[in-house]
C-alpha cells in the first residue's frame, strides 16, 4: 500500500467549496448598514414563533415534576429497600453481615442476636446515608436479595436519620399483603416500559 493518497494535501479539489462569507465592514457607514439590515429582517421572531406555536398547541412534552415523575430504571441506585419473603412475610435479611463487610464507605452497621427460635435475628440495622455513595455493592453481595436499591431518590428531610431506619426501608406488611412488593429484577434489567420508547433510529444509513 502506498501512502500517496495520504500525502496528497490538495484537498480543495474533492467537492469542497468556500463558504461565502461577506467581508467585515470596515467603514462606519458599512457597519451601520449591516446592523440595520439584520434588525429589520425580523430573524428574531422566527425563533419566538416556534415557542408561541407550541404553547397554543397544549401538547407540551415537559414532565411536570414533582407532580409527574419519569419511571426510573431498576438499575438506578437510590435509597435502599428491605424486602420480605412473599410466602411468609418474614424479613429476608438473615443478618449475615456481608453488606456491612463489603460497604466501601463503611456506612452499614447491624446488631444481631440469638433469638428464641434459635435463629439469627437482626435487632438493629442502619445505613448512614450521609456517608453512602450508592455504589450498590450491598445489594449485589446480598445472598438473600433482601437489601435492594429502591427508586426513592428524593433525599430531602429535616434529618438524615429519617432515611436510615430499618423499619422505613422494610416493606410494610400490609403493602406486602396487598401485593405491592415487587421482586427486584436484578442487575442489568431494563427500564420499565422501555420497549415502547424504542424507535427507529432516524438516520438513513
Amino acid at each position, binding site marked *: 500500500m502506498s501512502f500517496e493518497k495520504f500525502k496528497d494535501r490538495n484537498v480543495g479539489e474533492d467537492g469542497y467549496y468556500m463558504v461565502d462569507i461577506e467581508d467585515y465592514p470596515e467603514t462606519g457607514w458599512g457597519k451601520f448598514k449591516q446592523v440595520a439590515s439584520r434588525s429589520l429582517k425580523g430573524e428574531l421572531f422566527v425563533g419566538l414563533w416556534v415557542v408561541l406555536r407550541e404553547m397554543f398547541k397544549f401538547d407540551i412534552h415537559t414532565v411536570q415534576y414533582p407532580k409527574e415523575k419519569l419511571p426510573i430504571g431498576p438499575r438506578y441506585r437510590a435509597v435502599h429497600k428491605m424486602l420480605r419473603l412473599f410466602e411468609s412475610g418474614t424479613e429476608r435479611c438473615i*443478618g*449475615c453481615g456481608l453488606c*456491612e*463487610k463489603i460497604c466501601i464507605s463503611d456506612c452499614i452497621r447491624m446488631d444481631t442476636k*440469638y433469638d428464641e427460635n434459635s*435463629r*439469627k435475628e437482626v435487632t*438493629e*440495622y442502619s445505613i448512614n446515608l450521609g456517608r453512602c455513595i450508592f455504589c450498590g455493592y450491598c445489594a449485589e453481595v446480598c445472598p*438473600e436479595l433482601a437489601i435492594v436499591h429502591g427508586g426513592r431518590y428524593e433525599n430531602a428531610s429535616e434529618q438524615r436519620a429519617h432515611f436510615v431506619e430499618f423499619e422505613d426501608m422494610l416493606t410494610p406488611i400490609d403493602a406486602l399483603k396487598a401485593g405491592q412488593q415487587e421482586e427486584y429484577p436484578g442487575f442489568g434489567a431494563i427500564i420499565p416500559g422501555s420497549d415502547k420508547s424504542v424507535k427507529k433510529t432516524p438516520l438513513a444509513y
Partner: protein
Amino acid sequence: MSKMIQFTIDGRQVTAAKGESILQVARREEIYIPTMCYLAKTSPSASCRMCVVEAEGVDGFVLSCNTPPTEGIAITSDSQALYTERQNIMKMYNVNHPLQCGVCDKSGECDLQNKTLDFDLDDQSFAVADQRRESKVWGVLSYDPHLCIMCEKCTSVCNEVVGSEALFIRPGGYKSEIDNTFSKCIQCGECISVCPVGAMASTDFEYTSNVWELEKVPSACAHCSSACNLTYEKKHTSIATLGDEHIYRVTNEYDHDTLCGAGRFGYDYENRVTQKDEDAFAIAVSAFENADTIRFNSMISNEEALLLQRLKEQFGYRLINKEAKKYQEFMDAFTSVSGNSLYSADLETIRKSDYAITIGSAVSTDNPMVRFALSVAVNRRKAYMAYMHPIEDEMLRNLVTQYVKYEVGSEEGVLAMLCEMIVDEKAKESHKAFFDDLDLGYISGESNFGEEELELLKKKLVRRYDPVLIIGADLINHPNAVNIAKMAGMIEKHSAFSVMIIPPETNSLGVSLICDLDSEEGENTVGYNVAADFVLSALGDGDLDMPALSQQEGTLTNIDKRVVPMNAALAYHGYELNDIANALGVKSDHVIDYTAELPQERGFSTVRFDDLPNHYTNVGEEVRGYYLDVVETEASATVDVISDIREFNGSVIYRCDPLMQFNPFTDKAHQIIDEAFLSGSEQFAVAARIKDGERVRFTVGEDVYERVFKVDERLKGTVALNPSFDSSENYESYRYNQVKIERV
C-alpha cells in the same frame, strides 16, 4: 544423645528429631500439609486422613501426622493423586453440611469453609437422607450436631489436655454425635476453641457478631499467676452506642496453648469511666500526701508495682501486700537453701514430667493451667501423679494415681517425710540435725500420711527421670512456711526433682521481686484495690476509679517466671496510678516507661515494653516477653528441725474459690455466675449440725462471714470450703481455720 534423622520433603533436605512426625517437621519447615483433625497440643487422632503424603518406595499413602520419618526417605507433600484424595475427603466432610454459612458464627474462620474453597469444591454430587438431631446447650457451650464433622478435636482436648473426660462420642455411623457428661464438665470452653466448624459454639457469643468485624487485641489473662496468652476480641457495643466498645469474646492460640474458663469467659471486668473526675483526683493526691501506708494486692502489673516502690523510695510509704510478703519470705527461705533465686520448674516441665507430686494446692481451682499441664503429663507421658491434700478433689479423679490425704496442719511433717524419701546422701549430711531429729513414726501418726503410702511413692519413683514437685499456697501460708520453704529448697538442690512454687495470685511473683514490702501498717492508709482509709479501685466501688487490668498496658510475671505483656483492650478515660505519681513528683509519661527499669538485680531485663514479643511459632514455641534470669546465691542456710504438729479439730474451713472464680473481677464477669456459699460435705453438715440452705455465721481471724451453707455432693471429709472471690482483700493467714459455726 538422640540421633537426628535426615530425609527430604518435596526435594528439600530436612532433619527430624527422634519422636517427631513428618507433619511436625513439615510445619517447622513451613511446608504446607493440610489437616482437618490434627491438633498440635494433643496426640494425633488420625481420623481425617487429610494429612496423607507420598513416600518413595511405599505403596499407598502415608499419614504424616503420626508417622515418624525414616532415614533418607523422600516425601512428596502434594501431587495430583494427593489432591484428588484430599478433594474426596473434603466431599465426605461436606455431605449434608448445612448451607448456613451466612449466619454461622464460624464463617470466616472455618476450617471446613477454607478447605472446601481451597480444594475447589463448588458442587456436591451426592447426599444422604438427613436425620433429625437436637441442638444442645451445656452451660457456656452450645452444640449443634448438624454442623459437627466428627473430627474429634473436642473430645481429644477434653480427655488429654483438660483431663475431665466429659465429652465423648456417641457412636452410630452417620448418626454419631458428641455428648457431654455434664457433671464432669468444668466449663473451660477448650472444645469451643478447637472446633474447626461452628458445631461447638459459645452460648453467649452465638450470633452476636461476625468474626471478621472484631478487632483483636493480644494480651495476657490477669486472673491467676499463669497469665496465659489470650486475645480480646472487641467491637462497638451496638449501633445505638457508637464509640463505646466492649469485648465480645476471648480467643487464644488453641493449637498450642490452653485457656481455662475464667480466662475465656471472665473478660468483662473493665471499669467504665467516661471522664476524669478532677475533684476526686485532688482528694486522692492529698490522701497520698497525708498517708504513710499503701495497701495493695497482687492484681497489679509489674510497672505499677515498681511505681509503688518508687513512691516508697521517695516518700517513705510502707507497702503492705500481705500475700506477696508471705510469698517473698517463702522464696527467700527457699533461695537460702537452694542457692537459686527462683524455682526451676515451669508449666512445660510439668507437661514433660513422668512423676508429679502436688502438695498443698487445690490445683483445679487454684491454678487451672497446672492442672492442664498435669493432665498432659498423665495422658501423654503416663506420669505417676500423687495429689497430697487434706481434701480429695473429685475433679481430678481421672488424673490422680495416688491420693495422699494428710491431716490439716501437718504440711511441714509431710514434706519432711518426702524429703527423707527424695533427697540424696549429700543433703542428709549437710542438713544432719534436721534428719537426725526426724521421727517418721510420729509424723506419720499425726499427719495420717502412712509409711506404706510413702513406700509406694518411693517404689513408683524408680526409673522416672523427670520428677516434679508442685507446692501450693497451703504451704506458703503455713505458720511454719519458712522451714517448709527451706525443705523445698533442699529438694530442689539435692534431688532430681524440679520444684514449682505456685504464685498464689496473678502477680505475686512480680510484686515479691520488685517491691520492698513491709509487715507493719501505719496509721493513715491508701488502698489500691484493697480496703483502706482512701481507696483507689478498679472495681468502681472506691473513692477514685482506676483502670482494670484489661484496660492497662503493662507486664505480668507469671508462673513460668516469664515477663509477659498485656495490652489495653478497652479505652479508659479516667485517672490512673501514674497520674497520681506524676502529681506527687514521680514523673513518667506512661506507666510502661517503667518496663525497662524493672530491677535487673532481681532477674528482670531492660527490654522496653514495645519491644516485647507476644506470639507463637509454627511449632508452638511460646515467644512471649522474656524469662527472668535466675540469680545464684550461696546456699548457706540449713533446714531446722520440724515443730510439733498442731491438731485441727471441730469444724474446719478451707479458703478455696469455686471453679473459674479467682477474685472480684471474675465475679464481675457476666458469664461466670457464682454466689459465695460455704460448701461442705454431708459429713461436715452432720458434724457442724447445720443443714443445706441454712444461713450461718463464723469468724475467721478478724473477719466475720455470713454465708449460706450448701451441701456439695462432690465433696468428702470434714473440711468445708469458704470462698474468697467476693473480697479483694489478700490473705497471708493459713488457709485452714478452725471455726465455730452458728446459725443465723
